[in-house]
């Protein structure tokens, strides 16, 4: 069964550094999403992406964040200058536009 994959599974970075989180969505999906979950809290929407542009973003998704689909398979989330409060589990998801979203296993980002 096709699945969403994410790399790395765990990323440790120093405050102020740039990080790129990578996702490979399910191949026939056209809509892509990033969510984050701070430890012990609920899953929060960050951004949705379709046809090479952002469809919707939350207030969390400020100028420090960007997304890109650099090729036909990858979908990336970049954080330009990480802060301590960016430490969280980041989930990528994809779907065909409606109906259920399929989530990857997540990348745990630890900012020190």
């Amino acid at each position, binding site marked *: 069964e096709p699945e969403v994959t994410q790399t790395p599974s765990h990323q440790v970075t120093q405050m102020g550094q740039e990080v790129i989180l990578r996702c490979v969505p399910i191949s026939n999906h056209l*809509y892509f999403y990033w*969510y984050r979950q701070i430890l012990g809290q609920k*899953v929060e929407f960050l951004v949705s992406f379709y046809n090479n542009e952002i469809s919707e973003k*939350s207030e969390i998704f400020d100028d420090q964040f960007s997304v890109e689909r650099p090729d036909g398979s990858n979908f990336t989330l970049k954080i330009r200058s990480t802060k301590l409060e960016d430490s969280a589990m980041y989930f990528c998801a994809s779907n065909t536009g*409606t109906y259920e979203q399929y*989530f990857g*296993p997540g990348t745990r980002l630890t900012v020190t």
Partner: protein
Amino acid sequence: AQSVTQPDIHITVSEGASLELRCNYSYGATPYLFWYVQSPGQGLQLLLKYFSGDTLVQGIKGFEAEFKRSQSSFNLRKPSVHWSDAAEYFCAVGDPSGTASKLTFGTGTRLQVTL
């Protein structure tokens, strides 16, 4: 704005006992409704979904949920819990009026199963 409330932060049940996890939503119409499960250190796995039609939906692992429009609820049930069901359960809503719509999650209910 849509919102989801899961009033129970933590529930403990004995193995073999029945389970009901509560979920209430706030939305102008009938949203898409989902239950996801997250085992420790794992991602989110879809248990079941409701879009329209029969208000009692069946999911994986023996779970079911019932949509009650009058109560704005979508409670998750299982008749007999197994120790492997211990996990965090999230209810989520999606907006059916648009494509690429975000999911809004509740705060989750942590299920503990005692032997």
